[in-house]
């Protein structure tokens, strides 16, 4: 295809009309409200369904809600989750739940924040929270283990109390 070069008038060939139009656009924005944010100091406002870093939660009794059914490990597309299953001690208040993770590792370098773990969890134990800037100096720092995930997750307000009467 041959595109014909447009014929410019003398006035257009000075380029002044375009420069003036550009300056006018800039001038129009000067009195308007700013919409850039000073990011590291100013955090963005995130909403409830934001999908940030996955964390583990405890219920109000302090029970680790995860029972290590390993469905999140199974569903995780980038295989970021790795669970070592274990027993709950016989004499603890939550012994009736029987099973809990001995270790629960999320490789935050692999996590793609898709939220499938949260969706698949039958125990409402894993949630994607608002934390989106996960950084570290070493690879090991980004292997989030059970303690760190529980610390980040805190307590979840449990509505169902599934294991109360089991």
């Amino acid at each position, binding site marked *: 295809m041959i595109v014909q070069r447009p014929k410019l008038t003398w006035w257009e060939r000075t380029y002044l009309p375009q420069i003036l139009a550009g300056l006018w656009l800039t001038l129009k924005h000067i009195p308007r409200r700013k919409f850039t944010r000073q990011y590291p100091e100013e955090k963005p406002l995130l909403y409830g369904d934001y999908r940030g870093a996955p964390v583990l939660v405890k219920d109000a009794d302090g029970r680790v809600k995860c*029972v290590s*059914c390993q469905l999140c*490990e*199974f569903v995780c597309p980038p295989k970021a989750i790795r669970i070592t299953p*274990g027993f709950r001690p016989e004499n603890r208040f939550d012994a*009736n739940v*029987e099973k809990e993770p001995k270790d629960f590792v999320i490789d935050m370098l692999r996590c793609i924040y898709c939220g499938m773990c949260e969706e698949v969890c*039958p125990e409402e134990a894993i949630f994607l929270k608002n934390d989106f800037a996960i950084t570290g100096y070493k690879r090991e720092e980004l292997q989030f283990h059970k303690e760190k995930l529980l610390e980040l997750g805190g307590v979840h307000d449990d509505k169902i109390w599934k294991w109360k009467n*089991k």
Partner: protein
Amino acid sequence: MADTVKLTIDGQEVVAPKGMNLIEAAKLVGIEVPHYCYHPKLSIAGNCRMCLVDVGLPKLGADRKPEIGPDGKPVIVFGPKLSIGCNTPVAEGMVVYTRNEKVTKAREGVMEFLLINHPLDCPICDQAGECRLQEFSVDYGKGQSRFVEEKVHKPKRTPLGPKITLDDERCILCSRCIRFMKEIAGQDCLGFVNRGSYSTLTCYPGNEPNTNYDLNIVDICPVGALTSNDFRFQQRVWFLKETKSICPNCATGCNTVLWSREGIVYRQTPRQNDAVNQCWMCDYGRLNYKFINDPRRLTTPWVKSAAVGERLSLTWPEAIHQVTDRLRDAKGIAVIGSARATTEELFLLKKLATASATVVPHTGEADNFLLHADRTPNMAGARLVGFSDGRPSGEFTALVVLGEEAIPSDVLAKLELLMVIDLLPTKATEAAHYVLPGVTFAEKRGTFINAKGRIQRLNPAIPPVGHAWPDWQILAALLKELGAGNYASIEDVFADMARTLPALAELNLSKITDLGIDLSHRFTQMNTDSSVDICVASVAKKP
């Protein structure tokens, strides 16, 4: 065709042997009738009511002949109620519907009743993923419970002997375990107590299951009520890869499935083979798999070297080269084989020998069911390729040992070269000049010949640990370096065996299907050959 009857199941004509029940007859044409309590190897209890099917029989006239309807076909009369498939034998002209509306509604009802008191704790239940209740809930469940009352609570986490944990709430009272312990294991120890929804599976205190076959009740439990302490909470079944294998712990050669994930074997379960082990295996064999992932496994070839302290790791080409150099210098080579090795490996090992080729027998007590007195899986194979019992004898200065540790000390004293292929550090590897790491039965291909002369196939479930090589590959590399044979694959080895051994003539690895091939008739034909006496003897004893 007097022994068969013709019937119609879901519109498909089926020819089934007389006396067969409807579940099995439907299986013949690929129709699954859901069931819990029925098990083909156990007596029929008929208590789960899941296998209800709609059964019709031809209407008989006064002359006891089927009445013919206006369409020219026999008139079929259906029962007012459904029949259980497991205890209804096939009959001539029978018409069965396994999926019509009446049947589906009945099964939905049965499922709802079964789920009333079943705790919905699939996230912590080990059976999840292989649970019949889960599977049929998907097919016939409601998705929601109409039960608003409190569920019945029963004992949880009850130890049932040292190997099994019982969760009574999950039990659906199918009684398979009771029947297995009574009919197969021979210890009548389990039973139900209490009535109605309070019925509970239990055993009399002090009479816990205590046979060598207890763990089979874990396999046949359709739900997660019975769990094996060995596998409990170790891994979810949906991660595990199933590999068809053979139990290497005795000469019966039970067919098994190895369940592995990422190079770790988590459990071993029996696989149905009616010619060998039916559906069962003994606990001794089942639980003896831990050596596969033993952290002490040998992973690199090494040479005992005075110059650099105790041991010097070698690469495989170095190791093969050095060992063959030393073998060439030796005045005679004797070999000690293990009847735990595959037939192919023993065949190659025999080729290395210029002096004696011996195997070390390992025996224990037999139990007249599955556990054989010979605790090696392949003694018949070892005999077949020419190994005999006894001490290493003849003229030799080099000894090659495959997977055994008992070397007589006087033999050890006169050796110039001791090469050991093994899995774990043993007395033999301590004494050896060269150690080459081999692999377990779970990591290699090959065949075992069991005590009844049945040749069966191994499949690799996991990759070799560390730098270990399959034993046949080590031996093939040594033979190649010595110029005594060129085997590129295990098929080559088997082809050579089939050429030289009449008992294996015209066989190859693919012809040995997953269920193996019975070669006992070939052994009996050759019964002048004393090398196969073990097979002949055990075949003769066969009831």
